[in-house]
């Protein structure tokens, strides 16, 4: 491998691992669930993406094959990480429904759809029960 390619790959690996490390530190250190959500979804995704680009470049140089399919991993990660984060956020909110009282009122029968805590009995989804 020429030194230039080595340098690029090494830089990408370092960037990737730094971001992964930052993401992991954030997971440990941040105080609240809602703030903790940001680290694995954003920082770690970026870190994994950088590692994958490094892998593509190094294998191209090493074996001559351009493995674009590795970018699919990043694509799938972009698809699934937000959904997972949304679920985590929802679960947290549903477990702490009492903070719904601080929210401003809306002029809809169901106040805030995430909570539906104060939903009248004849709403369209009849399974509204206090969590």
């Amino acid at each position, binding site marked *: 491998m020429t030194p230039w390619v080595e340098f690029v790959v090494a830089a990408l690996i370092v960037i990737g691992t730094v971001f992964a490390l930052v993401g992991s530190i954030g997971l440990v250190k941040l105080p609240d669930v809602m703030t903790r959500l940001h680290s694995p979804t954003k920082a770690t995704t970026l870190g994994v993406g950088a590692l994958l680009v490094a892998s593509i470049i190094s294998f191209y140089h090493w074996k001559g094959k351009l493995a674009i399919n590795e970018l699919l991993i990043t694509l*799938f990660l972009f698809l699934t990480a937000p*959904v997972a984060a*949304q679920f985590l956020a929802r679960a947290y909110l*549903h477990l702490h*429904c009492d903070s719904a009282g601080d929210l401003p009122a809306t002029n809809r029968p169901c106040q805030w*759809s995430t909570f*539906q805590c104060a939903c009248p009995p004849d709403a369209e989804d009849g399974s509204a029960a206090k*969590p």
Partner: protein
Amino acid sequence: MRLMLIIAIPFFGALLPMLLARAGRRACAIATGLSTLMALVLLLSHAPVISAGQAFAVSHQWVPQVGMDLALRLDGLGLLMAGLILGIGLLIVIYAYHYLGKDESLGAFFTYLLLFQGSMVGIALADNLLSLLVFWEGTSLASFLLIGFWRHLTEGRQGARMALIVTGGGGLALIAGMLLLGDIAGTMTISELTARREAIQQSSRYPLALLLIAVGCFTKSAQFPFHFWLPQAMAAPTPVSAYLHSATMVKAGVFLLARLWPVLSGTEWWFYTIASMGAVTFLLGSVVALFKDDLKALLAYSTISHLGLMTMLLGLGTEAGLIATLLHLLNHAAFKGALFLTVGIIDHETGSRDLRNLGGLWRILPITGAIALLGLAANAGLPPLGGFLSKEMMLEAVSQVSWWGQPHLLTAIAAIAGTFAVAYSARFFAGAFLGEPGADLETAHGPSWGLVGPAALLVVSALAFGVFAQPLAEPILQTAVRGAMGNGDAPTIHLKLWHGVNLPLILSGVAILGGGILAGTFDGWRSLLKRRLAIEGQRVFRACEWQLVSVSRHVTERFHGGSLANYLTWFLVGVLALGGLSVWPSGLRSGDRQLLPINVLALLLITCLAAACLMTILLHRRRLLSVLMANVVGLITSIGFIYFSAPDLALTQISVEVVTLILILLALYFLPKETVAEASPIQRWRDAALAGLCGAAMFALTWVVLSSDGPTDLANYLIEQSKPAGGGSNVVNVILVDFRGFDTFNEIMVLAISALIIYALLDGAMHGAAADKLDHWEHDIPRSPEKHPAMFISFTRALLPLALLVGVYMFLRGHNQPGGGFVAGLVVTIALIVQYMVSGYQWAAERISIDYHSWIGWGILLAAGTGVASMILGYPFLTNAHEHFDLPYLGSLDISSALVFDLGVLMTVVGAVMLALANLSRLGRRAERAAQKAAEAAKLLDRGE
């Protein structure tokens, strides 16, 4: 070849009724009848040659190492028996079509019937002792299915179980006896046994073999003391009773004794064992039959008695006895079958079989009455019916033999039994047909011709065998005797109705007189004997059964008791003890390989693994977290696999982790999420010590294995031969589908069976106590108001085609690169499961129209088909071929026929996992519905107040 067809046609025909069940009852019956008819015609086409004295034989090798060949031989005796089976079978098919109601599953009934028929014809034609045993057990199984056909009736289930246990137990004894006999004789072929008769009878093991074979035959033919299962088996539908328990299956024991008669008979052992039991049964059966009120029970004991008669005659060891047995075999099948069919008609038309409530049926069922009259007359041995002839022969044969030095003892027993036979026959007829109409006759109506026809045909043949004995019965009997004697020079038989006034005639006259008097005065002296309790074999059996069950329950509760921890403790203690015992003498020696320096990465990995395992244990009471920790352990294991360059294994591990997690979480939904501390500190220390010991033992074992140089030849062979012989460069996949394809085939069968068991167990959770709990189940975790989150749905829909594409890609490239059927199946399963999770079960099930049961079935069939296809081409099972293709745009392809096998694996995996999921979610929906109803009820209550 045609002999093979005679047996094969009923077995292949057994596939038809179930398939044709949707086309209607008539199609089922026609298919069954046609199969039987074809087999019968084929059989009878051999008749001219056989009656001239020849025999047909054909033989194929089956398991040569134990001497088992599929050897068939058709001689006179086999012709008689098989003719009875197929001929009466045809009549029973017609009868059953008219007898069974519209809502009974006729397809299943005819399938069991044809299976039984095939096995029974196999017994009749078998020439090899071991293949006869296979057919013998086949009849036991088929009769279990047939007796328990009305499985909603307790008597039906119990009768079937008792029949299976008794005849199965007898079958075990028979296996031992046959193996002994084959060992003594040095050959397993029945036709060769006759030549070695002297050697067999001189051998010291002859009595043991004889006793074991006798036990097997006695259980099958309901001889004392094994007779008690036959009356219980009367809980079966009447066509079954007529076919199995009068005409064919119970005759199998007698038939086998007749088959082995030239080999084993003539000794004192034979005489005292077989003739004694036969005589006792003969007497016992006819005496007890007189006291029965249920018509079918009466006929059952009458059958027991007649079978005892035949056994006794065979036991005499004389030629006269053999001839009388075969004649009675023929006659008894005719009249007893007819009698059972008439009882069926009575039951069908009046709804009752109780003699105390019936009476005066002569007016409503005149034809049936005439049939019953003739049949009962044959039963009692009245001239000019066939039954009279065989009884005369029997008395003649018996009077020539002396027992324990008493020349007239057997004759006396036969005479008394004959008296009782007349008595119960008269009682049957008088009680059912004559006299005042009984209590159960309000709903009586005339029967259809389909019920009366077969009975009439049978009883007419019983009459014909008597009146036209010389043209009809004599040639059949002659052929049969010639076949049974084994060497062709049999005495010529003359059947005559009138032999002059001799002892048998006098005895018959006395019997008729005495029986008439007994029947007439029966009601009088019966009440005197009301309180006489006989030891009923059935009660002894039940007591033994109950004892066995309670002992085994006790043992199970001690070692298992429903607690997995208890069971596991005993298991581990046992393993440790056995392992320690085996290692104790020499100890474990560490191997010679050099130790490598510790890799920091590996150390880190192992530390994480150990930490995760510890967390699983420490958090075990918080189940959700514990399950997640277990998954972490699995993921670290996959990293370990990648570290050792095993991408296939890593892929499989990850996908299995995902699927298992989803299924466990589905199950955990209904279980408590947190448990209380159950074990005391002592128990916990004990468990910790045991676990520590096991861990140390595993460590020692692993150390020894890893540090020794193991055999590497196999590994090298597989790696070298993977591409040239297996057609793929992915050694793991080639091992799975090619080198060890049979193991994989068994594995997917196990997977399919476990999926079906899950289905059955969860189906059971919809009834009974579990269903009650479900209906009262309350949610114990907070639930999201948004059931189907929109973001998740849209992403999952977009992912579905991509995921399926990845699955297909992994499947196709599996042979040369990491992938394969199993991983692809799991990927497809996950893709589908997520659709169910996201949009709800009902929505997804309406759109994913895959029948998981049939996918499981087709998967296994495909895998088996690949194997069989190679067998058809002349190679061993599951041999694969591979070919190299150069396609214009796709490039070069290496395709192996293992691809079809892999497809079978994929389909089975998908079907099995999705089946488990589908049924788990059924529980959820039921609980959901119950919870909704409860919530609505609560709301109504609130509003009402």
